[in-house]
C-alpha cells in the first residue's frame, strides 16, 4: 500500500466527480508524493454537480464558477488528469486499468469513484427529442437551452432533481406538471409532513401535481415529444420532459473484475473492496454506516462522496480508521430550503419543532427514543445543531424536541462527555 514515501505506480482514481477529485486533492494535501492519476469520462475539468440543478440551470453562475478548481491546480498539485476517457477494464492481477483506447495505467492502489447514472424508463417514446435528464454538465447545457423556449414542461418523478427543476422552470414562467408514482414528493427521503410542506410550496407557485400516476408512453410528432400519456387515460401536453426517477450505481466495471456488487460496489467500513488494492467511494459504494439502522447503505450526496474520499486518503497515508462521518443532504427549491442531517430510514415517530405555519421548522425523526435524523425546513440553525448533535452521538428526547423552551443550541454546543 502506498504511503507518504515514493512509490511506483501510485494511486489511480476512476471517476472525476466530487469523490474522485477530493481523493486526489486530499492525497496531495496530506503530502502524498507518489503519482496520482484522475480519470474522468466527461470532457471538462472536474466540476460541482449540485449547482447544475440550481444556479447553473438558472443562469446565475457561469462555467468557471462550476469548476472544482482551475486547470492550473492540477498541474501545481501534480494530479495527472485524464478527461474524456472511459475505463474499459480492471486488470486486477496486473494491477492496471485499461482505457477504451487500450492504454494501460498501472496502480498501487485503485479507487473506484464511478458514481451513478440516470435511471431510464423503458417506455415507448423515451427516445423522442425533448426528453431530457439532469445529472451531468452536457445534459444541463442541453436542458438550459430547451427550457428557454419550452411551452409545457412535464417532470416524471418528484425527487430532489425534479422539484429543483420545477422551481426554476416556474421562475421562468413555464407551466410545469409533475407526475409521481407514489402519493407524495421526496417520499424516499423525507417524512410525510415535509413532503406536504414542499408540495404546498410548489403548488403555491403554480406547479401542478399528479400523484399515484403512472406514465404509459410518451407521444410525439416528427420525432419530437408532444405529450405524456398517463395510464389513467389523461394526456399532458409536453414539449420538454424531464425524467428524474433516480439513478443506478456504476458498478459494472467492478463486477466485471469479479468484485462483489449489490446495489453498488460492496465495501467494508474502511471503504475497501475484497481486493486490498481497490477501494470504492461515493455514489457507487455500498457500505456499512454507523448512522444507519439498516446496513449496508448507498448514498447519493456530495457530503458522502467527499467524506469517503477523505477517509480513503487518510488510510492510504497510513492514518486510517473506519468511515464514520455523519450523512447530510440539502435541496433548494425556489425560496424553500431543505437540510437533512442523519439517516431517517426506519423512523417510527416524528416530532415537529418550530413555526409550521410560517414554514420554518424541523422534523425530528425517531425509532423508539433513538434520534435518527432531523429534517430542517427553512431553519438552518436547527440543521447546524442537528449535525453537531448527531455526529457526537448525542440524543435529544422526543419530549425535549417538542418543548420550545428546550435549548437546542446549548445541547448542541455542549462539550462532549
Amino acid at each position, binding site marked *: 500500500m502506498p504511503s507518504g514515501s515514493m512509490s511506483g505506480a501510485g494511486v489511480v482514481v476512476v471517476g472525476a466527480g466530487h469523490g474522485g477529485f477530493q481523493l486526489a486533492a486530499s492525497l496531495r494535501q496530506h503530502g502524498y508524493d507518489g503519482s496520482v492519476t484522475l480519470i474522468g469520462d466527461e470532457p471538462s475539468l472536474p466540476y460541482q454537480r449540485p449547482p447544475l440543478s440550481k*444556479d447553473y440551470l438558472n443562469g446565475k453562475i457561469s462555467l468557471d464558477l462550476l469548476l472544482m478548481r482551475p486547470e492550473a491546480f492540477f498541474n501545481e498539485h501534480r494530479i495527472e488528469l485524464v478527461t474524456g476517457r472511459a475505463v474499459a477494464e480492471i486488470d486486477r492481477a496486473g494491477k492496471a486499468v485499461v482505457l477504451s483506447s487500450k492504454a494501460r495505467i498501472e496502480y498501487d492502489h485503485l479507487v473506484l469513484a464511478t458514481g451513478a447514472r440516470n435511471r431510464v424508463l423503458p417506455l415507448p417514446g423515451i427516445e423522442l427529442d425533448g426528453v431530457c435528464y439532469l445529472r451531468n454538465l452536457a445534459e444541463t447545457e442541453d436542458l438550459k437551452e430547451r427550457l428557454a423556449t419550452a411551452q409545457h414542461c412535464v417532470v416524471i418523478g418528484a425527487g430532489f432533481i425534479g422539484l429543483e427543476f420545477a422551481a426554476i422552470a416556474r421562475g421562468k414562467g413555464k407551466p410545469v406538471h409533475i407526475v409521481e408514482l407514489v402519493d407524495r414528493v421526496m417520499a424516499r427521503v423525507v417524512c410525510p409532513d415535509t413532503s406536504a410542506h414542499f408540495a404546498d410550496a410548489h403548488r403555491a407557485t403554480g406547479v401542478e401535481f399528479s400523484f399515484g400516476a403512472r406514465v404509459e408512453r410518451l407521444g410525439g410528432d416528427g420525432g419530437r415529444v408532444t405529450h405524456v400519456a398517463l395510464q389513467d387515460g389523461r394526456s399532458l401536453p409536453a414539449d420538454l420532459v424531464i425524467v428524474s426517477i433516480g439513478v443506478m450505481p456504476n458498478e459494472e466495471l467492478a463486477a466485471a473484475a469479479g468484485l462483489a456488487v449489490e446495489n453498488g460496489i460492496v465495501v467494508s467500513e474502511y471503504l475497501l473492496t475484497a481486493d486490498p488494492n481497490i477501494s470504492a467511494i461515493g455514489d457507487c459504494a455500498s457500505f456499512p454506516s454507523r448512522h444507519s439502522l439498516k446496513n449496508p447503505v448507498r448514498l447519493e450526496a456530495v*457530503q458522502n462522496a467527499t467524506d469517503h474520499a477523505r477517509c480513503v486518503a487518510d488510510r492510504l497515508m497510513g492514518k486510517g480508521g473506519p468511515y464514520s462521518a455523519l450523512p447530510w443532504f440539502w435541496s433548494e427549491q425556489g425560496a424553500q430550503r431543505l437540510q437533512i442531517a442523519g439517516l431517517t430510514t426506519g423512523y417510527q415517530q416524528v416530532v415537529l419543532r418550530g413555526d409550521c405555519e410560517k414554514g420554518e421548522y424541523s422534523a425530528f425523526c425517531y425509532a423508539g427514543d433513538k434520534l435518527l435524523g432531523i429534517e430542517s425546513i427553512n431553519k438552518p440553525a436547527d440543521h447546524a445543531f442537528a449535525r453537531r448533535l448527531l455526529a457526537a452521538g448525542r440524543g435529544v428526547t422526543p419530549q425535549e424536541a417538542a418543548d420550545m423552551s428546550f435549548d437546542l443550541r446549548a445541547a448542541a454546543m455542549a462539550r462532549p462527555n
Partner: protein
Amino acid sequence: MPSVTYVSYDGKSTTLDVPVGTSVMQAAVLHGVDGIVAECGGSCMCATCHVFVREEYLSKLPEMELGEDAMLDGAASPRRPNSRLSCQLVMTPAMDGLVVDMPETQT
C-alpha cells in the same frame, strides 16, 4: 478592481483582484487558493469556506444573516467573533483591501 488578501494558516499570503459582485469564496476557488473548500458550492450549507476577517474590515462587510450565523456554529475550526463564511461576502467597492485569515481546517 477591489482586491482581497488571503492568508493561509501557515502564513502564506495571496492577493487577488476580485470583481464587484463576486464572492470572496468564489474568487479563492477560481484561483485555486488553498484553505477554502466550499463543498456546497456557495449555498451557505456547509461552513467549509470559513474565514477570519481582520478587525478593520468587519464594519465594511454585508450583514450576517441567520443561516450564516447558524452554520458558523458548526464550523470545523472553532468560531471567533470575526468569523464569516466567505461565500456570503460578495465584493463591494468598500471592501477593497480586505484581508482574511484562513482557519487551521475546514473539514
